[in-house]
Structures are given as C-alpha cells and as structure tokens.
C-alpha cells in the first residue's frame, strides 16, 4: 500500500512508511501537545514566577507577619502561621492558574489566534480540542504545585508524607475553576467579562476562603458562602494533607466536592465549546 511515486519534484506523495503504532496517539493528547509547544517558549519565565511568588509570600506573610501572629496567639490551630498559610496559598495559586489559563487563552484560541479552528481542520474534534486544553492546564498546575511543595519543604512547613497527595489535590482545586471558567469563556465575545470575573470572584475568594485566616473569623452568612465555593474545600484539603491532619471522610468529601465542579464544568464546557465552534 505504500508504493511511492515521487512526482513532479518529489514534493508530494511522500510515501514514507509510517508505523501504524505511531498513529494511535489519543486525539486529545495531540491537542495538548500544541500547548506544550507554546510552553516551550515561555517555560523559563513561568518556572521562575512559580518559584519566586511562593518564596516572596512565605517570607513576607508567613515568616515576617507570621512571627507577630505566633508571638501573640501561638500560631493558628496549633501550628505556626507559616505552616498554616502555605497550603492555603498553594490552593489559591492553583485557583489563579486554573482561572487565568482558561480565560484569555481560550478566547485567543477561539478568536484572536484561531488555534481551535486550525485543530478542527486537522482530524481533532471539538471535544478533543477541549479535553486537550484542559489536560494541559492541569499539567501546568501540576508543575507549579510540584515546585511549590519543594519550597514549602524548604520552609519547614511540610509536616507529613501525606503532603504528596497535595499534588492531585491542588490540580483538583485548580480545575474546579478551570473547567467551569473555560465553559464560560467559550460564551464570551469580548474579554471584558474576564477582568470582572477576576476582580469580583477570583480575588475575593483568594482572600476569604480560609487561605489567610480560618473562616470562623467571618460573619456566619459569609461562612456559609465560603463553604459553597470550591476554593474553601481546596484549601482545607491541601492544609490537612501538608499538616498531616487527615480526617478520612471529611477530606474525601472535600475532594468529591471539587470533583463535582470539575465534572460539571467539563460537561457544560462540552456544550458551550460545541455551540461556539461547530456551526
């Protein structure tokens, strides 16, 4: 079947023998590979940022501000403030990456750069395109969490081997935002909605979801609100894991709640992506 007729200038009808086993890469993974190419260009600055941000935060808030807190109230919940803060920041960072990487990049791929269109002209389907993009965002969160955990260990805030599970927990927390926000981004015509979402949802959640202080400090009403948001559960889960204070069912409940957001977001994104791109 591979008789090659080298035509006019041998430009086409290449006729190379391509091993069949090489032609079985799942479609979504081919889409994810695109984002990997993109990352090749920016990975240095991205890794440096992922390294610097936690070091700066943990030094200023965790160690400097934390020493005041520890002196006055002997830490939070029996651990030093820096050990309390670090997993909260970890989950908060995951949320920010999950949100950032599914807002502007999704819009760019739909409108500005038309990357999705290019993929759809190749054998990929819209569902491969979506899954590939989300898989890449998850991978990027995993890279950042890995670096973060290393830095937490250097700051002496990793109390237990359970901390290793903060890797999937962080990815889950990030994608609990990434999947629904990707679904939302595919419905937008302009990027104005993204700054609004960032200012009025992402930042408030970052500040008030038990990241910097226990939510018991909040008025009752806001406490219930915090319970409903995914970040609270992401923070609680990561904190239990890095502090080694694992409470079986409670933590499984946190993970399950995050999973619901991921799956529901993915389900809605399948609809909004198809509605936007398959017309």
């Amino acid at each position, binding site marked *: 079947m591979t008789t090659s007729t080298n035509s*006019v200038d041998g430009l086409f009808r290449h006729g190379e023998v391509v091993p069949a086993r090489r032609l079985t890469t799942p479609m979504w993974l081919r889409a994810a590979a*695109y984002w990997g190419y993109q990352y090749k260009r920016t990975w240095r600055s991205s890794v440096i940022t992922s390294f610097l941000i936690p070091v700066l935060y943990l030094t200023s808030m965790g160690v400097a501000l934390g020493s005041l807190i520890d002196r006055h109230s002997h830490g939070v919940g029996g651990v030093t403030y820096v050990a309390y803060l670090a997993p909260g920041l970890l989950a908060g960072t995951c949320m920010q990456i999950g949100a950032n990487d599914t807002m502007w990049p999704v819009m760019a791929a739909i409108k500005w750069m038309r990357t999705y269109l*290019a993929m759809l*002209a*190749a054998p990929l389907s819209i569902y491969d395109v979506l899954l590939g993009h989300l898989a890449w965002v998850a991978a990027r969160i995993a890279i950042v969490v890995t670096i973060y955990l290393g830095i937490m260990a250097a700051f002496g805030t990793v109390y237990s081997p359970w901390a290793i599970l903060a890797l999937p927990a962080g990815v889950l927390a990030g994608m609990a935002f990434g999947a629904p926000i990707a679904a939302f981004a595919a419905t937008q015509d302009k990027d104005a909605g993204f700054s609004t979402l960032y200012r009025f949802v992402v930042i408030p959640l970052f500040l008030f979801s038990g990241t910097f202080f226990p939510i018991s400090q909040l008025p009752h009403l806001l406490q219930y609100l915090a319970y409903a948001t995914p970040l609270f559960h992401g923070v609680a889960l990561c904190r239990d894991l890095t502090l080694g204070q694992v409470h079986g069912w409670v933590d499984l409940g946190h993970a399950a709640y995050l999973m619901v957001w991921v799956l529901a977001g993915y389900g809605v994104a399948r609809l909004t992506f198809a509605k936007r791109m*398959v017309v």
Partner: protein
Amino acid sequence: MTDAPVADRGANTGTPMVEAHGLVKRFGDFVAVDGVDFTIAAGESFGFLGPNGAGKTSTMRMISCISPLSEGTLRVLDLDPATDGARIRSRMGLVPQEDSLDLELTVLDNLMIYGRYFDLPRKVIRARAEQLLDFAQLTDRANDRVDPLSGGMKRRLTIARALISDPDLLILDEPTTGLDPQARHLLWDRLYRLKQDGVTLVITTHYMDEAEQLCDRLVVMDKGRFAAEGTPRQLIDRHSTKEVVELRFRPGQHEDIAPELAHLAERVEVLPDRILLYTDDGDAALAEAGRLGHVPQNTLVRRSTLEDVFLRLTGRTLVD
C-alpha cells in the same frame, strides 16, 4: 521533468471525491446554502465562484466536515462527514479564509505542531517541512516568528501547513484574497503543480482570472444556489457573447445613445461610465456605430471573460 501520469490518489476507483445532493445550510432563519447538488471527481480542480455571502464558505465548511449540514446528503472521500469526520480530515488539507497560524511561534514550529495533529512521527514531519518550506519559498524564514511575515508569506505558510499530511483533497477558501499580484502568481504556480500531482483542488474565489487559471470546472453561486455550472469556456459560451465592445461617451450621454445601438448587439448594458455591447463580432459592431454617427471618446473591443458571465449572473449591485 516529464509530464508523468498523475500519481494515483483514488482516481482508479472511479468514486467521486465529493458528492452532494440537496445540500442545505441554515443559520437560524437565514438560509446560507439552499439545496445544491455537485460531484467533484478525483484529480479535478473545482471552483466555487460568487459574490460575498453567496454561500461559498458555508459549502466549503460542510465539505471540510467542520460544519454540520442542515439538510441533504454529503459524502467526502466516500465517507460520511457526520460519522467519519476525523478519517476524512486526516486525508484532507484545509486552507481557511482567515489564516489560523500561531503568530508567536516560528514558521517551522507551526508546521511541526500541525504534523503532530495528524500524529506523524517527528522525523517524518521534519523531512516534509523541509520540502514544504522550499515549496513555499520560506526556507530562510524557517526559524523566524510568524507575526512579522508579510500577508503573502503567511498565506503560503498556511498552504504549506495544509500539505503536511500529504492530503488527497485540498480545500482552499479564497487562497489569494488580499495578496499582491506577485504573490498571487506564485501561489497559482504552486497550486498548478499540486494539480499536476493529482491532488484534487476545491477552490472558492471571487477573482475571475484565478478561476480561469486554476479551475477545470466551476459553479457560480448566488444567494445560496448555483446560478450556472460548467468549464470556464462553457460558461462564457452559454452566458456571454464571444466579444464585448466597450464605448465611452461624455458623461450623461449614455442613456440617450444606448437605445440607438440596441440593434447592433445581442445585449446592451448601460453603465454610468460606458456602454457595453455584447456581440460575436466586436469590430463590425463598432464600425456600424461609427456609421450611425456615434463617435465615442474611447473604445475597447475585447473577448468575453468569466467576469462578464459572473456579473451577468450575479448582478452589478454591491453585495455586503
């Protein structure tokens, strides 16, 4: 290089590359494509002509399995786009109307990524990319970012990219719109070579010279339907005369003079700046007009072109 027989790209089976019956595309209440039938044979170069909004791009998007049909039947490469989209697209190259290149990445990386979508091994992609860059005359820009390239270079890269999978069917939606004449001629030359190579080409354009250069057969689309179809020669024979005489009088005189010339031609058309006489013998008509005492400021006798056919069939009113 001899004109060797075209490499087999499915021509031997006799099965058409594309076959459509009663094809309809609706967007809400708007009917973009209103029940068209066509068959494109292997190795053929088939053109869709028409003004903006005629339904060309919608038809192309259905053929490329990107856009689902609203009604009718469609088979591409003897497969059903609804269920075999991925298999069809793995044998098809698509050059969309608007480039979808990654502007931040290099020329070479754009080809590499695209090859990965088809799951080709890196070694294979690299070898093909080298040939395709040469074909697109972009070899010395291989490692430059795409963003600063000229429109013509980007267009050539888009075409090269569509060829990375060695497709049997190449779909080009307005391949040369917005390019300068040099870039257009270079692209025509490249497309002609692909045709020689047995690749089936499906092209939309609103450049009549492009259609005459590239298409074996074409359809003129208007308001979602086919207004005419045939070879460029057939269309001219059927819908225009052999020659056209263009007469320019003083502004304002055209309306008065035209009726007196009506008997000289099969058809007379009055434009704001000139009168067109459609006739098989232009020189005779021109001489007769002179004998009647009408001396234009400016005259031109020329052969009928596809443009005359196009304007006759789709009207001179501006479409937006």
